[in-house]
């Protein structure tokens, strides 16, 4: 895994000193979680909703949480479970369809329209995209990603290899 994110350092430090403020943890980690989920869903609104739900659950357990444990893993696991919940996605879908007036234009969808890199990533299968975002962008190793996704390490390796092959093939074609 790459250099520890600030939020993880904060969580680890909390084990030695007073408990880290949840607000500080949130400030350090919010953008990272939202952007990661955004690359899975293709929607900023949906990503913010999922990330908020994950942080909410973390907040509810913050006082009793073992801050030496894998707080970051808990957060990502919760967000991923939410993302993978078909029922929740149906709910969001219905809300989007039924109350479009309440929803502002999603800026990430607009970026996806014009940014080839985002479009290429979103065109991977959901499982390949999850594996790539966790290992290639968020810096989790294969074992950690496997634990987060509830699959074997070898499955993550296979998904990443498939995704890389597909991205390599796409990048061989000239930019639009």
């Amino acid at each position, binding site marked *: 895994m790459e250099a520890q994110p600030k939020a993880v350092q904060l969580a680890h430090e909390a084990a030695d000193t007073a408990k880290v403020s949840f607000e500080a943890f949130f400030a350090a980690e919010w953008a990272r979680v939202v*952007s990661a989920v955004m690359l899975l869903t293709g929607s900023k609104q949906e990503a913010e909703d999922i990330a*908020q739900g994950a942080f909410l659950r973390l907040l509810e357990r913050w006082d009793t949480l073992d801050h030496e444990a894998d707080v970051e893993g808990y957060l990502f696991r919760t967000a991923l479970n939410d993302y993978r919940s*078909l029922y929740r996605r149906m709910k969001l879908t219905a809300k989007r369809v039924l109350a479009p007036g309440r929803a502002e234009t999603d800026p990430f969808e607009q970026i996806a329209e014009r940014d080839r890199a985002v479009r290429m990533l979103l065109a991977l299968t959901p499982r390949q995209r999850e594996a790539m975002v966790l290992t290639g962008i968020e810096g989790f190793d294969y074992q950690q990603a496997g634990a987060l996704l509830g699959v074997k390490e070898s499955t993550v390796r296979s998904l990443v290899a498939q995704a890389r092959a597909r991205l390599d093939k796409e990048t061989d074609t000239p930019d639009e």
Partner: protein
Amino acid sequence: MNEQDVLDRAKRAAMSVVHSDDAFEGLLRRHDRKRRNKRIAAGVVGIAVFVAAVWTVTSGGAFDRTETPAVPGGSETGPAGSNCVVTRCTQTGPTPPAGTAPQTGYLIDLNTGETTQLPKSIAGCCYAVSPDGKMVAYISLDDAGMGQLFIARLDGTDVQQVTHAQRWAGGAPFDWSPDGAAIAYTSGDEDLFNIFVLDLATGETSQVTNEKPPGAGYPQFSPDGASIVYEVGRGGDLDVRIVPVTGGKSVPLVGGAHMGTLSPDGSTLAVACSGRLEGICIAHADGTNLRVLVSGPSLFGPKWSPDGTRIAYGDQADGPTGNKVFVMDVATGGTTFVADGFVDDWLDDHTLLIEAVAR
């Protein structure tokens, strides 16, 4: 642009639109809302227990189950201040918010290509056609912004809100029982969903599944109406199971699959495979002999035509917001592109109900 460039650029693009300005305040507001709702729910339960205890003492005996309850519908109670039977709420209950959503649902005749928009009075999402082809069930939002189940005639008349739950009761899809007397649907909150069956005549609901989080969804009646095929989340993946409509012990059908539905003659199960196999798969009704019918990791939502000769399905190959509808001939395996959007249901053997929206 190499592969790592793609990832770096995508991450930068995502980070560029994330703002943290009032995110923490938003989280605290949601936290407060959740705590308030829990307190209210606890209060309601407490009052109900107290009233029941007083009633039991003053009436001197156990509940008479033959008596009509004051608020039919079990846990799916009527709107506040009313005691209406849910199927009679059209005139006496709150006005459904129909017409507030864009009307994106339409019928398409596969023989002629002719399309017909659904009436604006039944604007909503995620339609399911009744067995006689005269009614549709769909989701619309109630005044609290919660998804509720509505039914109406296909011509847009006789709109009825049939669930009034204090939680989300419009988890699509849902399914009409073969005799048209009941609807199986998904209800729950963001932590846990389960399958319920609503008796349209009495308004009573019964819980069919009792799964652990994230729970169950996508209920589909067996052709004899005695069982419900559904999907359940397990360890980050989904499995398809079957359970008696009266509840009880469920039986696994296919692992690593979702959106299961039995053919009209009950002999064949169609699922979206997402495990070892990927695509639209079929199997014997007991889940054995699983095989891919159309291969592809982005295929989902198989729907049998009433005569069982064709399966409509969706393809999300263009990313999470792009969806296409295809129809496959089960005998030949030949597929035909129908339209962009989502396939909701078959009206008859040659007519599909489609939503032209990105979900």
